[in-house]
């Protein structure tokens, strides 16, 4: 039965309709795979066996009754950031110990309404702050990919590291993820999977634990472009409960697949050629350009002059918003409480014990840049630079560019407990150098696997689109996928 886990969502859905197997058999196949391999990967922080089997049985009834939804019987992993009613929801943090929400996030509610089955909650960097999944209270996640001839454990990227590893290791058919600075696209690139961060406002943020509210967006990580389109179709919605949810109908994303890119204008930004970038990233980029050219797209050189300021501006805006959002963890309303000699001491002891190092670091930066006397110099300056970053994109789109092609990451996956990354927080932050601009401008971006490096590790390309033109990204990414093929980790576990 284990080969059921190798099916894409589109394939599994068709076979469920054809009664080749039941939803319960499919779910049991995944539960078996998780049982066998989760100890190795640490991708799930909670497995919901009983709930999964009950949901799968209900799916079988709906399949039999001809009332099957778009994701009927499809087993999914859910990032620990999404509130799931009565189920472990801790943003992989110690401070949310034991938290089981009494409500369901809009994104997951949409998935269940379409018939999807929940396998469990996926590991992540604590409060989505990290690029390697090493800041999790539950420990690091292992990447299913290893360099050729090596037994060294690699990170799956982050913050959605559990999501990416689970999809790549066949421990779920697809996963939810979130992206504040690259947290969907970077792990997708590190694991040979497809990840899309939609336009800000496309997926409701209601019921998703907040990190940086003006940047956070949910999206899927999937085995291929079609599955990513199917999942986003369900996750995206218009939601009155989120004041930034945009009132636009959700288009049929899969209809864009297979459409030609002939005549489309693809921009190549010169600022994404950064110093110290490995030669093979450049080669991959050129290969992507060649594929799109062969498919009839017109390639144009563009300039996005404020690119280099996106990451520093992000490291003011995101911590500032985080310091405010994370003020709610006070030992009173949920999660951990450490006793103190008075209420202030209780707050301080609880937060000292409950937050990990990286989270504390960002709360401290955020508190500092928002404090009296520094607000204008840091926060207002960063928000002005953000306006300029967005204007760069608006200018190239106004000049007729339909989408922008860039590398997804400046390197392939690195080792767990990498010494250089651990010694210098800024070096870790540089992982997001190609992805963070997209969050700062609120645009959609997709990472699609495009090749392997000399170590045999996956590398991804990123496509950036105009606001709410996810269809253009799916269409173009599909062309790259057709040319590049799909990449599967050789099974060693």
């Amino acid at each position, binding site marked *: 039965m284990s080969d059921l886990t190798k099916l894409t969502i589109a394939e599994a859905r068709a076979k469920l309709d054809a009664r080749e197997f039941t939803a319960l058999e499919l779910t049991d196949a995944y539960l078996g795979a998780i049982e066998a391999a989760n100890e190795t990967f640490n991708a799930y922080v909670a497995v919901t066996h009983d709930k999964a089997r009950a949901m799968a049985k209900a799916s079988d009834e709906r399949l039999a009754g001809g009332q099957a939804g778009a994701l009927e019987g499809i087993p999914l992993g859910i990032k620990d950031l999404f509130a799931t009613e009565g189920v472990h929801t801790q943003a992989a943090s110690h401070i949310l110990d034991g*938290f*089981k*929400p*009494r409500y369901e996030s809009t994104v997951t509610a949409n998935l269940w309404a379409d018939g999807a089955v929940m396998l469990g909650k996926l590991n992540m960097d604590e409060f989505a702050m990290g690029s390697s999944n090493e800041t999790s209270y539950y420990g690091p996640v292992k990447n299913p990919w290893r360099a050729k001839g090596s037994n060294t454990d690699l990170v799956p990227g982050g913050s959605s590291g559990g999501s990416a590893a689970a999809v790549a290791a066949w421990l779920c058919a697809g996963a939810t993820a979130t992206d504040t600075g690259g947290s969907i696209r970077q792990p997708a690139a590190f694991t040979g999977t497809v990840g899309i961060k939609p336009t*800000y*406002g496309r997926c409701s943020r209601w019921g998703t634990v907040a990190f940086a509210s003006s940047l956070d967006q949910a999206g899927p990580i999937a085995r291929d472009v079609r599955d990513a389109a199917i999942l986003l179709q369900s996750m995206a919605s218009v939601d*009155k409960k989120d*004041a*930034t949810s*945009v009132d636009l109908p959700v288009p049929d994303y899969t209809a864009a697949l297979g459409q030609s890119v002939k005549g489309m204008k693809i921009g190549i930004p010169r600022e994404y050629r950064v110093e110290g970038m490995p030669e093979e990233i450049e080669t991959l980029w050129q290969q992507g350009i060649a594929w799109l050219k062969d498919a009839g797209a017109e390639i144009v050189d563009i300039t996005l002059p*404020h690119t280099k*300021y996106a*990451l*520093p*501006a992000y*490291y*003011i805006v995101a911590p500032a918003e985080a310091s405010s959002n994370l*003020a709610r963890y006070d030992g*009173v*309303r*949920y*999660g*951990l*409480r450490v006793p*103190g000699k*008075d*209420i*202030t*001491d*209780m*707050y*301080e002891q609880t*937060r*000292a014990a409950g937050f990990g190092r990286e989270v*504390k*670091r960002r*709360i*401290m*930066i955020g*508190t*500092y840049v928002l*404090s009296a006397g*520094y607000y204008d*110099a*840091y926060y207002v*300056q960063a*928000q*002005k*630079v*953000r*306006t*300029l970053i*967005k204007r760069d994109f608006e200018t190239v789109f106004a000049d007729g560019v339909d989408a922008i092609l860039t590398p997804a990451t400046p390197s392939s996956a690195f080792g767990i407990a990498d010494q250089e990354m651990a010694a*210098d*927080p*800024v070096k870790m*932050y540089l992982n997001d150098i190609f992805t963070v601009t997209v969050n*700062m401008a*609120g645009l959609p971006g997709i990472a699609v696997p495009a090749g392997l490096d000399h170590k045999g590790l996956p590398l991804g390309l990123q496509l950036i689109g105009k*606001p709410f033109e996810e269809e253009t990204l799916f269409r173009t990414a599909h062309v790259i996928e057709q040319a590049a093929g799909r990449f599967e980790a050789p099974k060693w576990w």
Partner: protein
Amino acid sequence: MSVDVDTVTRVARLARIAVTAEDAQRMTGELNAILGFVEQLGEVDVSGVEPMTSVIPMQMRRRDDAVTDGSKAADVVANAPATEENFFMVPKVIE
């Protein structure tokens, strides 16, 4: 700009995070590395540029000022570390 240990201790107090002298020392170095990195924003000419307030141009949605939910006190306190009769319990605040 850079921070010293006293500033870090003050910021930790504002953020309600207990730090030891050793933590404050370590954090000072880390924070200065990050502040050094963001320093380059100062070189951008932002004259006449409005700070961003919303990435997607949109009007804040309004709703009727009406009660649409509620009577869920037990749900609200369900996850609290200490409660009594649907109240949150905290250490004594007023002498």
